[in-house]
């Protein structure tokens, strides 16, 4: 009754226990037919025992999935009592043979491996350092070469990169800068009002933004925006063997890929810093005007006195240094990418994280080195 309603293609297993102890299989034992009835069938297969007579004569089709399923259900050996048509037997034999082929397993993780991994990290760091220094050295050599051969300057690449990392970053940099300026001014104004020291808002905003916040803010933005793009671009070129093609064409990848990026970012970053600081100051100025009634004219007039000129140069120098750093780190990680997607994502992440960390580190060094320069009073 049941078998009449189900179409004949559906795989069926009829277990006749007791005296005869038979398992009768019918239908198409293929992946497609088995998938809807997979778990109930598996449960019934478990109920069979060693003495069961397996009758496969009703099986119209058997593929390697079905064969492997049966082979595993039989515990990896031929059942004592098997009645199978030749076509099924061929497929089963193939699966049986495959089951004896041992796939190599990746070695299990042991305690020793943890120590080895730690050691590998230490050496890995040294490796990074050496590769980074080598990259910088190569760039210096390229630079000298280009000074001697001025015709070989990759000017198109540089200008394309300036457009990509500089010009195209302007809207978002302005927006972020403006909003940070507003927030900073608003928060400071709350405190200053309490002390009646309203006019010091110019000092706080001016010093903070021009000397510190502008360069660091832009760096974080650019590291996330352009650093990751540079790493990913070089990485994809590795995956698609474009780097090899360049090498085969006798084109230096440091000269054509890395140097333009580094120079373009070192050139654009100070300009971006200027632009972002300006828009942050604008935001701060507007906020101060609304909150403290500090007129914009007064703000602009006071600013040069509150913030001596050297601070602007420190900001620009920081921008150039950070830009150099971000591009170098991005290219360094890009060139280390192995031709697979996992390595691509890991190195892109590492590139951004390292760039931002290094920028903050170098910022601290700047702060110490320039502690006597440009401080008012």
């Amino acid at each position: 009754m049941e078998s009449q309603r189900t179409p004949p293609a559906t795989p069926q297993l009829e277990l006749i226990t007791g005296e005869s102890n038979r398992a009768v299989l019918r239908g198409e034992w293929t992946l497609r037919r088995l998938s809807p009835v997979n778990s109930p069938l598996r449960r019934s297969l478990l109920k069979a025992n060693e003495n069961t007579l397996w009758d496969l004569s009703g099986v119209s089709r058997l593929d390697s999935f079905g064969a492997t399923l049966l082979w595993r259900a039989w515990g990896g050996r031929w059942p004592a009592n098997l009645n199978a048509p030749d076509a099924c037997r061929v497929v089963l034999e193939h699966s049986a043979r495959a089951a004896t082929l041992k796939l190599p397993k990746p070695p299990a993780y042991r305690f020793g491996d943890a120590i080895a991994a730690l050691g590998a990290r230490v050496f890995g760091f040294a490796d990074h350092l050496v590769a980074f220094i080598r990259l910088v050295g190569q760039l210096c050599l390229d630079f000298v070469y280009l000074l001697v051969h001025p015709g070989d300057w990759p000017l198109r690449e540089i200008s394309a990169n300036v457009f990509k990392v500089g010009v195209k970053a302007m809207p978002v940099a302005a927006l972020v800068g403006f909003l940070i300026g507003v927030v900073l001014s608003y928060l400071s104004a709350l405190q200053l009002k309490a002390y009646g020291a309203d006019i010091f808002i110019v000092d706080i905003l001016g010093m903070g933004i021009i000397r510190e916040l502008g360069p660091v803010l832009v760096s974080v933005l650019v590291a996330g925006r352009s650093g990751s793009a540079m790493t990913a671009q070089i990485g994809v070129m590795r995956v698609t063997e474009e780097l090899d093609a360049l090498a085969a064409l006798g084109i230096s990848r440091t000269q054509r890929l890395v140097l333009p990026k580094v120079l373009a970012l070192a050139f654009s970053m100070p300009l971006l810093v200027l632009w972002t600081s300006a828009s942050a100051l604008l935001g701060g100025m507007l906020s101060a005007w609304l909150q403290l009634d500090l007129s914009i004219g007064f703000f602009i007039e006071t600013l040069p006195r509150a913030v001596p000129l050297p601070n602007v140069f420190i900001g620009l120098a920081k921008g150039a240094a950070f830009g150099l750093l971000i591009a170098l780190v991005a290219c360094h990680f890009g060139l280390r990418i192995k031709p697979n997607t996992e390595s691509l994502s890991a190195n892109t992440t590492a590139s951004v994280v390292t760039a931002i960390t290094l920028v903050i580190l170098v910022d601290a060094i700047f702060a110490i080195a320039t502690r006597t320069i440009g401080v008012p009073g």
Partner: protein
Amino acid sequence: MSTVPVVELRGISTRFGNKLVHDGLDLSIESGEMVALVGGSGSGKTTLLRHIIGLTRPASGRVKLFGEDLFSGGIALQRQRRRRFGVLFQQGALFSALTVAENIALPLRELKLATDAELDDLVALKLDMVGLRPDDALLMPAELSGGMIKRVALARALALEPELLLLDEPTAGLDPERSASFVALIRTLHKALELTVVLVTHDVDTLKALATQVAVLADGRIVSLASVAATQASDHPFIKRFFAAAVTGPAEQGAR
């Protein structure tokens, strides 16, 4: 068994910009056939395969697989339909972050039907089927040679026990010996697994060795669908040039 064509294309038109690639193309492929799709470079063979797989949709016309419209039915039904064919992409398209074994096991693992032990067995089986050693299982795609990539990609295409196998230039980029052994492999699989195969090829040797039928794509249409012998006898200008170039070699052809 059934009389429905496995692949049925009716009035396919494809347009890229203002370039008409297919112009009302019809093709139907019967179950169990091994159809070679030939045509000049850029004539739209890969594009046609992509239509059949459903990666792209033609501007007009209908694509039917196994007698059903490719995009008919709910998501589950469409997904089930997609599992009935396997594809060997022109470049292999192996997942670069996974080992050979993981690449082959991935489609099956997705189905969550097999135990880990069964997966291992099946991977070993597929590797054996395509003539690779079990030791190759742990290699990464970047560590494989061109011929091995094709084999692994074929093993992955076979993982879901497809009824229809689509091969885009399976022998391109292989040396004559490897190419011949790959051809032999496809023929064996075609027989053993009762597959329907559609293969794109430029190689006349491959075509003669494998195809039960040749579909010639020219001027945006299938201009001929016939056995190899009948196709060779045709006097369509493109077909004449195609076989003539293979006999004399393209260099001499150019010199004449």
